[in-house]
Structures are given as structure tokens and as C-alpha cells.
């Protein structure tokens, strides 16, 4: 994989909240086409790492490069990077006062300058891709949790992102809806999307991930491909963690 272009590159990243260190000297990189899953106990800094990569958190030390662009950069540069990197949140964060269609076309029309009909067409395509093409004129609160999360993925896809960041996309869902969202993500991975996925779904990580990162206390303790990650645990805390979640 190392011959491929680097999409996200974190070097010695430090993130603090007051006196609390959420990310402590974190270095890692993600290459084009790679699917990297991030696991670890609650509060270990997984979300924080992902959010710094999208400029939603400022960092106190180290450097982050996304798509060859230094973060956060100027306001325009940051906006451009955010358009090229899609983000999906645990709590969906759909715009409740807009229909699904408006949720999807708002960003491409206002940022990429798409005209209405192209945007509508692209919205239909994105929704078809996540399997809910018939829901386009509903409002978010008329959909189930799993459907809402798929709309959120479709909304990110509208910008035709080069990399997608998922922050526990299935944690807020009822168990029976987890599968439908994971299926969509599996398809994306199969189509070659570069993805960073924070998740508690070990089965998904094992099956889809090219690499799995284990985080604890703001550090990446383990970075292994799935087969060795689960079978040859090199870290004591990972062993404890796995014994709890598996």
C-alpha cells in the first residue's frame, strides 16, 4: 500500500482541552484506497483524531496534511478540504427543517455551483446508491435511524469526496438497523473509497479494514492488519479490550 498516494498524514499530533491531553503525539497516515478502522475504549480520543482531520478541532502540536494540504490553512483552503473529505457523524446531524432532497443538494449547489437539475439527478443517484432512492421528498424525522444515517452518507457522497471519515456511524442505531448501514459502507469500500472508520463493530473492522488502529489514552498503541490484530495481540491493553468486546 505504501506506494499509493498519502491522503491523510498525521505527524506527532497533540490535542489538549485545558490541562487534559486528548491526543498525545499521534502519528499515522492513510493511503488512497485504504480502509482504516479505529477502535478503542471510550474517551481514548478516537473521535478527536477524526475531527482534527476535518478541521473541526484545532491542534496544539504536530502537523496534519489532508490531500496534500496543510490543516487548517486559510479559511478558503479549509472549506476546500472539507468539500473533498466527507464526514459522517454518530448522531446523523441531518438538517431537520429541510427535506431529504434539500439536505443533499444544499452543499453542491452552493459550493460546487451545480445547477438545480444536475444536483437533483446527483441526489437521486446518491440515494439509490445507499438504497433509499424512494424517500427523496420526505423529511428526516419521517425516516428510521438507519435510513437517516444512510441519507447522511448520501449527503457526504454528493460532494464526490476523495476520502470519507466515519465517527461511530452505527452507535446510535437500534441493533436491527446496524446491518443496513454497514452494508452501504462495505459497498463504498469495495468501490475503492478511502475511509477512516471509528467503530465498535469488530466484525466489520475485521472484514473490511485494511488496517486497524487501537487507541487508548490519546495514543495509537497498535496498528496492524486485521489478521494479526486479532490473532497476535501485541499489547496487554488490547488483549483486555478485545476480551471485553468480542
Amino acid at each position, binding site marked *: 500500500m505504501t506506494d499509493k498516494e498519502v491522503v491523510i498524514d498525521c505527524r506527532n499530533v497533540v490535542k489538549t482541552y485545558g490541562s487534559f491531553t486528548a491526543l498525545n503525539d499521534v502519528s499515522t497516515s492513510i493511503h488512497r484506497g485504504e480502509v482504516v478502522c479505529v477502535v478503542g475504549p471510550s474517551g481514548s480520543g478516537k473521535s478527536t483524531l477524526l475531527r482534527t482531520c476535518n478541521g*473541526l478541532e484545532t491542534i496544539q502540536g504536530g502537523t496534519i496534511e489532508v490531500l496534500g494540504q496543510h490543516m487548517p490553512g486559510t479559511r478558503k483552503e479549509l472549506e476546500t478540504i*472539507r468539500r473533498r473529505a466527507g464526514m459522517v457523524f454518530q448522531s446523523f446531524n441531518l438538517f*431537520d*427543517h429541510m427535506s431529504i432532497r434539500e439536505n443533499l443538494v444544499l452543499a453542491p449547489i*452552493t459550493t460546487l455551483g451545480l445547477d438545480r437539475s444536475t444536483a437533483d439527478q446527483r441526489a437521486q443517484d446518491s440515494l439509490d446508491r445507499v438504497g433509499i432512492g424512494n424517500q427523496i421528498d420526505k423529511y428526516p424525522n419521517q425516516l428510521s435511524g438507519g435510513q437517516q444515517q444512510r441519507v447522511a452518507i448520501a449527503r457526504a457522497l454528493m460532494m464526490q469526496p476523495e476520502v470519507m471519515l466515519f465517527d461511530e456511524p452505527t452507535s446510535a442505531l437500534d441493533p436491527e438497523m446496524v446491518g443496513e448501514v454497514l452494508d452501504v459502507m462495505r459497498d463504498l469500500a469495495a468501490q475503492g473509497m478511502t475511509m477512516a472508520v471509528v467503530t465498535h463493530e469488530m466484525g466489520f473492522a475485521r472484514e473490511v479494514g485494511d488496517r486497524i488502529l487501537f487507541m487508548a489514552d490519546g495514543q495509537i498503541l497498535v496498528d496492524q492488519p486485521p489478521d494479526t490484530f486479532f490473532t497476535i495481540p501485541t499489547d496487554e491493553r488490547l488483549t483486555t479490550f478485545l476480551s471485553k468486546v468480542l
Partner: protein
Amino acid sequence: MNFDFNVLTIHYPAVLDGLLVTLRICLFSLLFGVIDAVFLCLGKLSGRGAGYRVSVFVVDFFRTIPEVVLIFWIYSCLPLLFGARLSAEISGILALSLLVAANVAEIMRAGVQSTNPGQLEAAMSLGIPAHTIWLRIVIPPALQRMSPAFVNFLTELIKATSLLSTIGVAEMVYQANVLGNRTFAYVEFLTLVAAIYFALIFPLSLFVRRAEARLVAQKCR
């Protein structure tokens, strides 16, 4: 005693004149007040600097002093300080505009600051430009959330217009007093005026109650 409808049928046009003045005062003080409120709200949202500190003080000050004090201060002090003559009605509109500005600024600020941070993050992560985020993501739901508090304040404003009778503005209460003095039919005129206020304010109160219940239901879902 007997409730004398006769006196009402003779003198009701004066009460209606008063009603017109009441409504006119509400309208103008809302108009001027809301414009000021936008500035004060911007000041409070801006978070630091002179504009912020002054806005915070102005909002707190005019929300904390009694309306009558404000009305009398404007009516009797402003002309002395600036050497300009103001009619009672203009003074009243000025005082109530300040009342509107402070209260509506606070309502707007609360509306904006209760924006769902997750939706803001989603909008930012899509790279949507700032002005679009304000116009499409922040303001429309904020207006909706703010509507009960705003209408509730509207009821307070209508009630506050009655206080302008104390500086001689010829609104409803003033007219009722004048007519009462002239005909000794205090009960009739005061009751009529109370009923008119009730008819103006009660529907708004009902709206507030419904809208609040709706917002609570939305939050629980």
C-alpha cells in the same frame, strides 16, 4: 348597581381611537425596536470587544429597570438633556422601542445559540460557506424556536402600552379614565377596556402555549 350599556354605545368611538393609538404604538416600537435588537444581538454574539460589552450592559439594563421608570425618564429627562421637545407619544414609542430592543435581542441570541451544534458541524464538514450556513441552517430553525418567546413578549408589550397613559398618551386606558371622569361610568369603561386587552392578548397567549407544547414534543421525539 347596573351595568349601563348605553353610555358605552354613545362613547365607544373614543375608546376605539384609544385602541388605534395602542396598536400604532405597538407597531412603531416593534419596528424601531427590532432593528436595534438586531444590532444588540450581533453585539452579544460577537463574544468580545466593546460592542459585546456595551450590548450586554444595554440588554441587561433595559430588561431590569421597571418600564414606568424608563417611560418617565425618557419623557421628562430627554427633552432637558437634548433641548428637544418630544410629544408624549414619541417619548412613549422611544421608551417602548428600547424595551423591545433589549428583550428581542435576548430572544434572538437565545434562538441562535440553541442551534444544534451537530448540524453546524455537518454543514462545516460539507464546506458550505458561512453566509449559506447562517441563512439556511441557523436562522430558519432559530426563528421557529424563538416564536413562542417572541409572541410572549408581544403580550408584555401590549400590556406595557397601557403605562403610557401615565404620561398622557391618549391610548385606551387614558381614554377610559377621561370618559370615566366625564360620565362617572368607571366600571363600564374600565371593563370594556379590560375586555379589549383580553381579546388582543388571549389569542397570543394561546399561541404561546400551543407552540411551547409543540417544541417540547419535538425535543422529546
